[in-house]
C-alpha cells in the first residue's frame, strides 16, 4: 500500500473511532466541546506518531515474549513527554480540562492497537504515515463530535456563540449524550455502506480484519509478531 493510502485510511476507511470503534473512553469524555476534543486528538496524534516510529525501528530487536511490556513503556514515555509539554506550553485551561484523560492515553487501545497491528510489522515511513493518519482521523472525529455536542448543549462552537440555539440540551454535554450521538453516527455509516453495497449488488458485511479478531494482543502466543497470522 502506498504511503498516501496508509495516511488516508485513518480518516474514513479504517477510522479508529467510526470503523474500528476503539478509544471510546477518551472519545466520550473529551468530546463535550470542540477545543477539548482538538487538544486531546492532537496529543494522541503526537503519541501515535512517536510510538509508531520507535516501535517500527526496534521491531526486529524486541523479543516476542516481552514485546507488549516494551511497547507500553515506549507509549508511556511519550505520554509523559506530551503531558509535560502541554503543562508547560499549552493554555492552562486546556491542560486542566483534559485532566486525567491525558495520562490515560497510555491505555488508549488505538495507540497500543496500531503498535501491535501495524508498527511492529512495517517500516519506518509507513508506520509514521499510519500513526499520523490514525491520529488525525481520531482528532477529526473528536472535533466533529465536540462541535455537535457543544452546539446542542451550549449553543457555541469553539466558545463562539452561534446566536441561533439557546435551548441548553444538557444531555449532549454529558457522556450519555456522546454515546447516543456516536451510536447515531455509526448507524448512519452502516446505512451508507449497506446502500453502497446494495448498489453494487452485494451483501454488506463489516470486514473481519476491522474488529478485534485481527489483533494479536489477546493471543498468549510467544511467537514473534511477524510470524503471526
Amino acid at each position: 500500500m502506498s504511503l498516501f493510502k496508509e495516511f488516508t485510511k485513518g480518516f474514513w476507511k479504517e477510522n479508529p473511532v467510526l470503523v474500528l470503534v476503539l478509544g471510546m473512553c477518551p472519545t466520550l469524555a473529551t468530546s463535550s466541546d470542540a477545543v477539548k476534543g482538538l487538544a486531546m486528538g492532537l496529543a494522541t496524534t503526537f503519541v501515535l506518531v512517536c510510538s509508531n516510529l520507535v516501535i517500527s525501528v526496534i521491531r526486529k530487536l524486541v523479543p516476542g515474549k516481552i514485546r507488549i511490556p516494551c511497547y507500553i513503556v515506549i507509549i508511556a514515555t511519550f505520554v509523559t513527554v506530551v503531558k509535560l509539554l502541554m503543562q508547560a506550553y499549552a493554555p492552562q485551561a486546556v491542560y486542566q480540562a483534559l485532566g486525567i484523560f491525558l495520562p490515560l492515553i497510555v491505555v488508549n487501545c488505538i495507540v497500543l492497537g496500531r503498535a501491535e497491528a501495524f508498527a511492529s510489522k512495517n517500516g519506518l515511513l509507513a508506520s509514521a504515515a499510519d500513526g499520523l493518519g490514525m491520529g488525525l482521523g481520531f482528532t477529526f472525529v473528536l472535533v466533529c463530535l465536540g462541535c455537535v455536542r457543544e452546539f446542542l448543549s451550549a449553543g457555541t462552537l469553539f466558545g463562539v456563540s452561534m446566536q441561533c440555539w439557546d435551548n441548553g440540551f444538557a444531555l449532549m454535554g454529558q457522556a450519555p449524550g456522546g454515546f447516543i450521538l456516536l451510536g447515531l453516527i455509526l448507524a448512519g455509516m452502516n446505512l451508507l455502506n449497506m446502500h453502497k453495497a446494495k448498489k453494487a449488488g452485494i451483501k454488506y458485511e463489516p470486514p473481519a480484519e476491522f474488529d478485534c479478531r485481527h489483533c494479536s494482543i489477546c493471543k498468549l502466543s510467544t511467537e514473534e509478531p511477524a510470524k503471526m497470522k
Partner: protein
Amino acid sequence: MKDMTKASNPFYLAFFLLVVCGVSTLVMAYTAVKTEEPIRISQAKETADSLKMILPAFDNDPASGAIDLTSPDGAPVKLYTALNGGAVVGYAAEASASGFGGKVSGIVSFKPDGTIDTVIVKSGHSETPGIGTKVTDRSVKRTISDVVKGVKPDTSKLPPNAALDSYSGVKPGDSKWTKDKDAVHFVSGATYSSNAVCDLVWYASTAVRDYLASQSESKEAN
C-alpha cells in the same frame, strides 16, 4: 533439551526490558528537567493574571508572600495579601470544593475589612458545558456576528456572572449569608456546581475572617 536461545533466555529478556526502561527514564527525565521552568512560569502567570483581575491596584508580589491557612471546616486555603504603598488594599484567598465533574478551584478577593469583593473560578474545571459553566464561567462572550464584523472582545473589565457576582458585598456570618442557608444566586439545574462555588467561597471567607480576627488580636496584645 531446554530452549535457551537468546529470545527465550529470561536473563536476556530482563536485560532487554531494563535497557528499554533505562532509555525511557532518560527521555522522561530530560523532558522533565527542560520543562520544569516553563511549567513554573506558566502556573505563576495564571495565578498572577487572576490576582490582577480581582484585586485593586497593588505594588507588591502577592504570590511570593502567600500564606497557607485552614478554614474552620478543615479545607486548605491559600491567602494572598495585596499592598499598595505598604498599606493593605485587599486580600485574595484560593480554595477548592467538589463540583459535578470534579474539583472546582476559585479565588475570592476581599476588601481589607474581610467583605467579599469578587469571585472567580479558575479555568480548567470539568463542569457541564451550558449548565454548570453558567455558575462558574466569567468568559468573555463572543458571538458569530462579532467574529464576522471583527469586533474585538472587551478584556478591560471582568465579564459578569450573576451567580458569582451575588457573593459581592457579603461576609460569612452576615444575616444575608450563612452556609447551606443563603441568599446567594443558585442556578437551576446546576445544583452541584452552585454548591461547589458556595462551599469554596465559604471556605475562603471563613479562613480570611479567622485570619483577620487573629491579626487584630495580636495587634491589640502588642
